[in-house]
């Protein structure tokens, strides 16, 4: 059995201007110890996917269809009371901007212990002991549980967030841009740490980022999202070496490659679509150089074109043949 199977997940937001299909029928699976990268531009539904899996959507958002199978148990239709058994115990999230996610007037140890007391029913004393050992796990001396957030550097605060996410020995950890606000050297340290922990605990890891360049070396699988849909998903190697979706191709070309000459990347013309007024066919068609009439009318369905390699594009064969 797979650790996590997401099938045709749809999460919609109802706002005064209409319905936003933030996540519109995504499917993927994740194995024990596997790392999946979710990548795409701002507003493509990466974070909403993560929030749906952990059931912490804002009140306007709702899972309207699909299944989220955690070791065979469907989380999608659970109510608040049932989901509480799984949230943080089995699925935890480490957010972007660690500086803002920690409570400035609460000791670090108390903040970590809070989750342990709530989800695992340990006494405060035992929870604090566990908090100290968790800090050691992320290379911070255990005695620093009695420090306040302002006494830590940005990188250390992000480590604390990771320790917190690990507090209840989750089976899946989701990192939502966990290194975006950090310096490159600290970013590399954090990515090393996450990789070490993932191996140690055989934990599934979902890394959400807009930075495709760090995914190649961090993840086993990569899913590229555009306007609420996964347009291409494959092994990391295939995403880069056997790219089939024009959006993936353009996204890769946005990053400078020092192994090649100094060529200014092409960038992607236009802007992501307004999620309230999506075009009738493929949402990427207005920005795509391969777009044909069919693309403008008919939404492409995901097709399996290789082992575990799915692509949603009418013209993938044209692209595959160069």
């Amino acid at each position: 059995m797979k650790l996590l199977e997401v099938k045709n997940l749809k999460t919609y937001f109802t706002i005064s201007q209409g319905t936003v299909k933030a996540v519109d029928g995504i499917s993927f699976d994740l194995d024990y110890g596997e790392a999946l990268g979710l990548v795409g531009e701002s507003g493509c539904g990466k974070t909403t996917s993560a929030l749906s899996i952990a059931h912490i959507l804002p009140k306007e958002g709702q899972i309207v269809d699909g299944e989220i199978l955690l070791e065979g148990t469907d989380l999608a239709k659970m109510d608040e009371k049932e989901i509480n058994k799984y949230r943080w115990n089995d699925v935890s999230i480490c957010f972007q901007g660690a500086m803002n996610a920690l409570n400035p007037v609460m000791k670090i140890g108390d903040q970590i212990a809070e989750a342990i007391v709530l989800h695992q029913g340990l006494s405060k004393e035992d929870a604090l002991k566990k908090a100290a050992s968790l800090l050691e796990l992320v290379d911070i001396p255990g005695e620093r549980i009695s420090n306040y957030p302002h006494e830590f550097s940005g990188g250390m605060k992000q480590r604390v967030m990771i320790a917190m996410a690990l507090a209840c020995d989750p089976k899946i950890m989701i990192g939502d841009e966990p290194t975006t606000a950090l310096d490159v050297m600290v970013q590399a340290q954090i990515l090393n740490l996450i990789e070490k922990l993932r191996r140690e605990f055989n934990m599934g890891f979902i890394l959400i980022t807009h930075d495709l360049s760090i995914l190649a070396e961090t993840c086993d699988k990569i899913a590229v999202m555009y306007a609420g849909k996964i347009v291409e998903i494959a092994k990391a190697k295939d995403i880069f070496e056997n790219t089939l979706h024009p959006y993936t191709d353009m996204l890769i070309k946005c990053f400078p490659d020092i192994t090649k000459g100094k060529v200014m990347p092409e960038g992607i013309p236009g802007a992501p679509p307004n999620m309230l007024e999506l075009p009738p066919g493929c949402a990427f068609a207005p920005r795509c150089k391969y777009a044909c009439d069919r693309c403008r009318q008919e939404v492409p369905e995901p097709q399996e074109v290789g082992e575990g390699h799915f692509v949603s594009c009418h013209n993938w064969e044209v692209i595959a043949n160069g």
Partner: protein
Amino acid sequence: MAKIFEVENLKVHFKIKGTFGSSKKTVKAVDGVSFSIDEGEVLSLVGESGSGKTTTGKALLQLVPYTCDKMLFKGEEIDKSKAGLKKFRQKAQMIYQDPYQSLNPRNEVLDIVSEPLMVNKLTDSEEDRLARSKAALEEAGMIPGEEYFFRYPYELSGGQRQRVVIASSMIMKPEFVVADEPVSMLDASIRTGILRLMMKFREETGVAYLFITHDLSLAWLISDRIAIMYLGKIMEIGDSDIIVNGGLHPYTQALAEIMPKPGQSRQGERNVLEGETPDPTDVVEGCKFCSRCPVRMEKCEHEEPPMTEVEPGHQVACWRVAK
């Protein structure tokens, strides 16, 4: 080629009060840097947060108090009188990092773009102001310009905001621009558009940039030369290809090593530097990088390495190189 900026031994020290009024401490944000920028050149300053990149940029634009042995703009001392600075700033501009914060939310795009013209009384009629604002916006890729005149910043996307910021810097036709992480808040897909725009202005007007970034691959892509900063000092400066592929300073090498290479999976762990940047108020006797250096020697702890020229235009501050 003529130099647009020359600085020698630039220092910016901030005095801060200790906790509960304990003795004052000095933060040596920039501690003796020397470099020059040619006309039309792009020089990148690369380093971690707190390395003094932004402060160096601000000092050049006379926005923070500093000391130095020499600072020349187009070969002349900068006139620091009020009128002199006003004139200087017509020629030297800044592009800030965060287009979500650097635009006044209550001003319409037209007011933002034309503000430099109004402040400097460079326009005499409303028609002229509109025409020049339209041209500036269109140069920055906001076409048609007048469509955007009466929009507020919240109605624009991040990329469009940064284009407005650039339009208002470029309306003065500056000769030197400090660009402080101009694309780090933007999506990768939009970044290249902004970078291309900056390079287009360089080709058309010959403007020189001091490009501040923590992203070595971006610096490599757009600049002629790169200076690597650490704790207020320049560790190495040279041609961008040399810095990325043949850097001699251990810090440069560490930065180049962890630079993500798209499409290449990594064998084993990233080779990262241990620890974190020391507190800038601590007094470091020898080399500032010493505490994290994987190849430090005893000498490094006591004596600061001099800037050594290893080949024309390539300078390194490291005892391993200086011998």
